[in-house]
């Protein structure tokens, strides 16, 4: 898993997010939030995510709702979109999915 800042406030995450990488993802996402008031996170490069990744996203969203940095998920893959739907979390997130 890698998370890089492509332009100020916009980040791109790539690789697999599971129980092995979720701690790194959480740290990188928290660090991204410290750099901007709202982080746009491009998820198109994530090749796999399970509920370990969901946990990190829910925590980040809860920080946003508590007045922390905002979070926008951009271009999640079909697998991530389905995972969010199955977990009943689609409406928890602001999802930007440009055509």
């Amino acid at each position, binding site marked *: 898993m890698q998370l890089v800042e492509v332009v100020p406030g916009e980040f791109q995450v790539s690789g697999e997010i599971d*129980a092995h990488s979720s701690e790194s993802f959480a740290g990188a996402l928290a660090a991204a939030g410290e750099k901007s008031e709202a982080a746009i996170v491009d998820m198109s490069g994530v090749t*796999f995510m*399970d*509920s370990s990744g969901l946990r990190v996203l*829910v925590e980040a969203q809860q920080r946003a709702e508590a007045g922390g940095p905002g979070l926008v998920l951009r271009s999640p893959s079909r697998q991530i979109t389905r995972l969010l739907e199955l*977990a009943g979390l689609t409406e*928890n997130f602001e999802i930007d999915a440009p055509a």
Partner: protein
Amino acid sequence: MNESGPPSNRAAPGVDLRAPADTAQLSEIRRRVRAYVTDAGGGDDVADDLELVVSELATNVIEHTSSPTLTIRVEKTLDEWILDVADVDDLSILEHVALPDRSEVTGRGLFVVASLVDDVRIIDDGASHAVRCSRHVSLLR
């Protein structure tokens, strides 16, 4: 990771995987399960779903049991995909699988698993307990 019985076609027997109960093994386990499903004629939807199922169940073994080893079997019969993940020492884990409140941070893995397959149960092979997931081959989702 130790492996035996790699399938070469639809008629091939299931594949058995054994690996240390370590999250570092998850990526390779998913890759092996996906390869089996693809070789056995499963489409991307089945491969995506069983990849997610095995990841959730293997993570559960690693994080919530004392088992030092992950023992996994995936098999396609004439009408079902069957995935076994052992060793499970909490035989009650499937008794109350429910979607948690949206504000809850954890607890969605088993619900997601149950949503992706047709049946989830605990099986006892005499030496250990495994979670067995079954999914109809012809099921359209």
